């Protein structure tokens, strides 16, 4: 819902920030997952003080509050990086814990204080690291499999320096996307910073010792993430849809006015 006088450039800046927010469990942008329902900017505004409203909705009413909290906090943080934004107000819709969540995020309360009852002793930073590991492993597997398909041998891959990986072009767009994301996480987590550093360390920073065993680990990480990922995508799409059986072939139609995106 955008007012006619809104500046599209600024709206685009907000969306570009939202592209950087990942669903932590799936390692996919919340924008790609279709979670963002609406963005609006109050305008005109005084210098550096406009308020951006972002509402988002998850695939089900029951999605885990800790994951939802991580996403809401990241949305707020990313949008508030924009110099002209004074405040980002995040609204989670249609969720079992929506009221508590929205109050907490927008007042800056910690997850622990709001959800002590539901998630006693939860350490969100530890959870975040767990998801970082999975994201790293998932991206790494895609790149390794792409290289194997190109004819590289496992021994060449485990010994490959980052400089060489940087220079290898992957044709498949999804592989190329994951390679860029893999390189980004290698840098972010300081796992391989220079061209001479090994391109495929483990999360602990050690070389891959037993290649088949390690690939088995990466495969199981992917299988788990794909299960959640494809269910989440599908359920988000299906939410509030109903089967219309009146025609020759059943079709799904959206039955709820607020499922707008």
């Amino acid at each position, binding site marked *: 819902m955008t007012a006619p006088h809104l500046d599209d450039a600024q709206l685009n800046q907000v969306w570009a920030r939202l592209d950087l927010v990942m669903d932590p469990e799936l390692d996919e942008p919340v924008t790609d997952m279709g979670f963002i329902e609406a963005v609006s900017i109050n305008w005109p505004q005084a210098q550096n003080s406009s308020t951006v409203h972002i509402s988002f909705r998850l*695939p*089900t*009413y*029951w*999605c*885990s509050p*800790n994951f939802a909290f991580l996403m809401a906090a990241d949305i707020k943080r990313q949008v508030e990086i924009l110099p002209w934004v004074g405040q980002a107000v995040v609204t989670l819709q249609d969720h*079992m814990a929506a009221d508590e969540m929205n109050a907490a995020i927008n007042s800056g309360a910690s997850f622990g204080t709001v959800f002590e*009852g*539901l*998630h006693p002793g*939860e350490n969100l930073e530890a959870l975040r690291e767990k998801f970082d590991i999975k994201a790293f492993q998932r991206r790494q597997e895609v790149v390794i499999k792409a290289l194997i398909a190109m004819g590289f041998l496992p021994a060449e891959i485990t010994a490959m320096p980052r400089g060489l990986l940087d220079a290898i072009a992957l044709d498949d767009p999804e592989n190329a996307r994951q390679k860029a994301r893999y390189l980004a996480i290698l840098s972010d987590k300081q796992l391989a910073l220079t061209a001479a550093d090994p391109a495929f360390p483990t999360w602990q920073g050690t070389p891959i010792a037993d290649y088949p065993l390690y690939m088995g*680990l990466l*495969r*199981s*990480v992917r*299988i*788990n*993430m*794909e*299960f*959640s990922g*494809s*269910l989440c995508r*599908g*359920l988000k*799409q*299906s*939410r*509030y*849809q*109903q*089967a219309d*059986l009146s025609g020759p*072939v*059943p*079709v*799904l139609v959206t039955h709820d006015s607020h499922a707008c995106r």
Partner: protein
Amino acid sequence: MYVTPEGKEIFVLDGHTHFWDGSPENQKNIHGKQFIECFYAYHTNLSPKDQLWAKAKFEKYTEADLYNDLFIDGPDDMAILNSTYLKDFYKNGFNTIERNATVAKKYPNRFIVNGSFDPRDGEKALEYIHFMKETYDIKGVKMYTAEWNGNSKGWKLNDPAAYKCFELCDKLGIKNIHVHKGPTIIPLNKDAFDVHDVDYAATDFQNLNWIIEHCGLPRLDDFCWIATQETNVYGGLAVALPFIHSRPRYFGEVIAELLWWIGPEKILFGSDYAIWTPKWLVEKLWAYQIPEDISAERGGVQLTDEIKEKILGLNAARLYNIDVAARKAEFSAHPMSIAAE
């Protein structure tokens, strides 16, 4: 009975079915509405288009629908009806043991009705287990470790109160403990996905069979590890199997992991009716082969006809002491018909 395209007759024991009432009239609150909404989204999301139900039917289907979809139109010979109370969400419960037992009584030998209890109810849970055994002669139960109960947002299989209940189950011959370890469908605490409590319980109760519904997904690796160590841990395919239609390669990866780790004797078919109907699931499973590259990564495992037959019925029959030959003979002498009403 499923008859293969080659004419072979396969005994099908559907390990996971429901007879629920999620209708608006029975909903107690927003949670009840959202619970059945979520189930319906699973249905619309993973079913083939020609298998879609209208929402009103999905919310509350009839005994005739159940009977037809499983046994007449569907290939099931027998089905396990699981009980799920959810009395905080539904006025008369979602699918209680009373509701299940009523329909089971009409079709002798077709249904196995499983009970359910909540160990956090303490003495009452123990009394209720006695009641279910005496009244319905249950052979199994269905557990939801993530269910809310007052201030508690979940429990573990190895909680002391749970152990008291399992000791009683063992004593009374309630051998089969089905445990929901799968995707989020009800309010969950942070450990609800965790499957490690299965490890403790299965070790400490060797006489009981632990059937982990949904194979712990999305914690398949943890589940496989535990089920490989513990001889009495099994995996139910409900929710994993429908991917055979929408993402067949993905299903191949899951079933290859299961075959490689836990083997063909410990995998149980379940349709999760009425989220999905068994007819298309069984037909697709019978026609399915694991793609070669996936199989190669897991030591060449493959779904042979013999393995499919085990998954579809023989494995569950073993757990419930079902004499398959006797049941086959009985069912062919008294074929089911619409006129059974």
